């Protein structure tokens, strides 16, 4: 068949697009370039209940991971609203000031935490030191693939092997590992653009995307201080216990390591975690990542 000019140009455009487009692995743990570290594996062991200190540490890491992975505009909007509520709260407590119908901080925190629930759930699950296999007292730890040993469960499906119900439950428990996808772009700029695009999409109520991890995760120092101050002010506001742990985590500032040790990301990599509410819709999640990535 003769190659027409139009077909040639179309082919070149497609080839260029493919070169720029991110590499997509439907099963990120199994399919991974050999020159990179192997993906995480899952290790099953008896689960010790988390101590309060561990739980607080996980909450703190989750809170800062959530902020780092939020769309910047959305993060600024939430901060503005919280600061407004904090000012109202202070006015209400002061005998010298009047509050002209401002929002209550507890209400704003509840409302915003509901709005970001899918990302918050994903951040909390990603930050957990272990996941409990539902219906058991057995825990699952993720380990860098390089530390794999006999008995570990691969994060990916078995492929042509028959489905093993136990392994399926182990993988289900560790869904931030097993249901996530890794995207890799040719350079950091592309990674940032991709992350920004997916994070905007993740704000949509109908999205299946929970959290987009990777890219430049560090918040600017000014923003860190702003959020720490929000945490401190919220901590002074005598919130309910659940919200109190969140405010304490923010007030403490970002942890040294934002990402769990098992998640080894190259600068060009993104780790896209689905919403927990979309775990039965893996195909839709992958399609959405493809479409918006």
């Amino acid at each position, binding site marked *: 068949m003769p190659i027409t000019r139009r077909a040639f140009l179309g082919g070149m455009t497609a080839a260029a697009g493919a070169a720029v487009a991110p590499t997509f692995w439907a099963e990120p743990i199994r399919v991974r370039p050999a020159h990179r570290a192997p993906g995480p594996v899952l290790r099953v062991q008896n689960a010790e209940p988390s101590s309060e200190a561990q739980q607080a540490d996980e909450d703190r890491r989750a809170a800062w991971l959530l902020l780092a992975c939020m769309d910047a505009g959305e993060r600024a909007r939430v901060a503005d609203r919280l600061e407004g509520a904090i000012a109202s709260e202070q006015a209400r407590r002061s005998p010298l000031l009047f509050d002209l119908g401002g929002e209550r901080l507890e209400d704003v925190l509840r409302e915003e935490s509901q709005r970001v*629930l899918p990302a918050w*759930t994903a951040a909390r699950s990603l930050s957990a030191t272990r996941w409990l296999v539902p*219906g058991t007292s057995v825990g699952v730890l993720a380990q860098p693939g390089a530390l794999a040993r006999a008995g570990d469960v691969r994060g990916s499906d078995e492929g042509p092997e028959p489905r093993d*119900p136990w392994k399926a439950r182990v993988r289900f428990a560790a869904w931030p590992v097993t249901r996530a996808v890794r995207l890799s772009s040719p350079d950091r700029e592309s990674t940032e653009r991709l992350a920004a695009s997916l994070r905007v999409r993740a704000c949509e109520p109908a999205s299946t995307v929970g959290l987009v991890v990777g890219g430049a995760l560090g918040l600017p120092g000014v923003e860190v201080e702003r959020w720490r101050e929000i945490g401190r002010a919220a901590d002074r506001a005598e919130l*309910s216990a*659940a919200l109190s742990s969140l405010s304490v985590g923010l007030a403490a500032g970002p942890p040294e390591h934002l990402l769990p040790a098992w998640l080894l990301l190259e600068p060009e990599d993104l780790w896209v975690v689905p919403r*927990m*509410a979309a775990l039965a819709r893996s195909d839709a999640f992958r399609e959405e990542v493809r479409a918006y990535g």
Partner: protein
Amino acid sequence: MRRRVLGLVWAASLLLACEGGRERASRSDGTTGAGPVSSGPTIVAGGGQVSSLTGTWDLVTTRATGREGHVVIDVHPDFLSVVAEEHMLLLRRSPEGWEVHHRGFGESWRYPYNCDGSVRVVRGRTNDVTARHAERTELDVGELPIDLGGRWRIAGEADFGCDLVVGDGAVDLSCGHVHDDELPWLPSLNRRNAHLERVRRAASMFGDLGGEWTYREESGETECTLLFEGSRMRIACAGGRRFVGNLDLVFGDGVVSGATDRGIEIAGIRR
């Protein structure tokens, strides 16, 4: 069929109720109560049909301002149970229909349900109801292993009772006196008549239930829309004092997940 629709509403609202109940219990006894629960008893399936929903399901729920919750649902042709910490609902097939036992809803029992292979009352008051399948009609409910079609008489104490007629495309519910306080996870049924009607057909894993349904009470207080399409189930209620909001669930291959509009995410897997 109508009964199946109500059964689904019931099971779905239980998910919401379990969460709500957990929060209530947390406030009353000062504990959050999060943690694993005993798995349900193993019941060998009898005369009913075995479907893809048959089995033991472990569900995890999460909310923005709380820890994870755990719910175990056993679905068998002769047995259905929902156990969520201090809440328990148990349906067992009987020659006449189904025996329904529920405890913990509106109360705050701690682990009233001991699982050692049998079901037994540990402490506290049980709320028992008999659902008598007075007249059976053929109704395809797809993956649900429960026969619903026909006329039902649901009765508990002497002054309690509802009549239910489940047909193809319509369900009628007529209740006398009902102790509402013990059923906070359902729209108020006390001296109410309600009607469910399919307004659009759709292919669904739930057979003849497939499509869009409306639920209206004669009093006009609560209105709901139910959707069964493909592997998706959606319930949206408005106007009532107790059961309002949306619940979306999607079933996959041995997994289920979804969310409510009140800030709860749900995911589960079959053992």
